[in-house]
């Protein structure tokens, strides 16, 4: 069962996240002329990378039967860090646009 959902869930999940990273980098390059906007997109990218890492940790612990007692919390912390980076990205993005408007 583990290998089935490993193949069926984690693999597409990892692919989706890789594609997301690609699109974020494309959007970031579209905003290259606005240097202040690079940071929020980079932070968002970091969040997606952490989400990728969280899924990867789950895949590793399942496929190699590693101690879930140790890897489980690592995956959960990575998930929380993902949320933190996305929050940070959005706060920064809002700040950048607010400053741009007042400028």
């Amino acid at each position, binding site marked *: *069962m583990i290998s089935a959902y490993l193949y069926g869930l984690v693999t597409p999940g990892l692919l*989706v996240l890789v594609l997301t990273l690609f699109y974020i980098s494309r959007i970031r390059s*579209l905003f290259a002329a606005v240097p202040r906007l690079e940071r929020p997109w980079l932070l968002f990218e970091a969040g997606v990378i952490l989400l990728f890492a969280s899924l990867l940790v789950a895949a590793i612990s399942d496929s190699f039967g590693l101690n879930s007692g140790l890897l489980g919390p690592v995956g959960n912390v990575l998930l*929380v860090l993902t949320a933190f980076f996305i929050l940070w990205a959005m706060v920064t993005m809002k700040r950048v646009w607010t400053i741009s408007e007042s400028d």
Partner: protein
Amino acid sequence: MRKRLRSALRYVTLIIILTLLFVPLISAFTQVAEQGPRIVKIRGHGRVGQDAISVIADFDSALNAHHPDAALALFSDGAVVSDLSNIACLSGTNLPSPPCGGQNVFHTTMQIRGWLEQLVKEGIQVKEIGNYRVTAANVTWDLEVTVDEYRRLDVAPLVANAMAVVQDWKIKSLTISLDQESTKKLVLGYAAHQRTPYSILASGVGFGILVLGLVFPAAAAYYISRVKDLFATVPGLKKPWTLLQAGVASLFIAILLVGIRSTVRAPPSYLDIIQYVVIVLTGFFFLVAMVLMKRVWLVAPND
């Protein structure tokens, strides 16, 4: 016209890619749903003329090899398992509730599967002691049991008594419980491993991280709505931001599931699957949001 064609082609490509990605997802669910128990002969057991003993030996071998499906295949329909000492679901005193919710009698195939999977998760190893005693269809035997909890408490292995009714090469009922001396040993083990300041701190830190994990996506969703308002004048940007919000909401649910997993008594494997689905959905929402956003920004300068 060419622009519209290109746009349509992009949509079709995206739909094809997403379909290809989600076919294995659906197939995984079908596999999980349809996966029937199969008999795997793990270890050969000398034929001593008693079919029942052979079945029990195969059951022990399946457990030792951590093959819950093989072990489940040895149970008949309507079988009952009584794990009177909560070998599978015994929780440490540090946990708020036992994984099986205090349940120790399992009636349905799903419940027995959950019990077997919990035993495997606990790294079970069993070893028969002495001889099997057979009376008609009843088999009784003593065995040494080792699970992670016993290892953690430094009491492994513990001795258990088991009784099974075997009919037509299938286990109809199974009752297992620790013997008196082992029960005492276990109680003493718990007394020796009372909560330490470190374990209290660790659980506190874990709870703190979980709370932050719920606050972060909630705050992120709020900030996305603020950013969305800032872009209200740019047509087509509302949808990507809404999708991004949906992704963050999924992330919130994924983190909420971490908390639920530590408190609710559902079989861990099912909650794992739900959590993976939610994380994959998060990624999917992010991807669609980014694809749409890129498209909007690419179109915007030309307009």
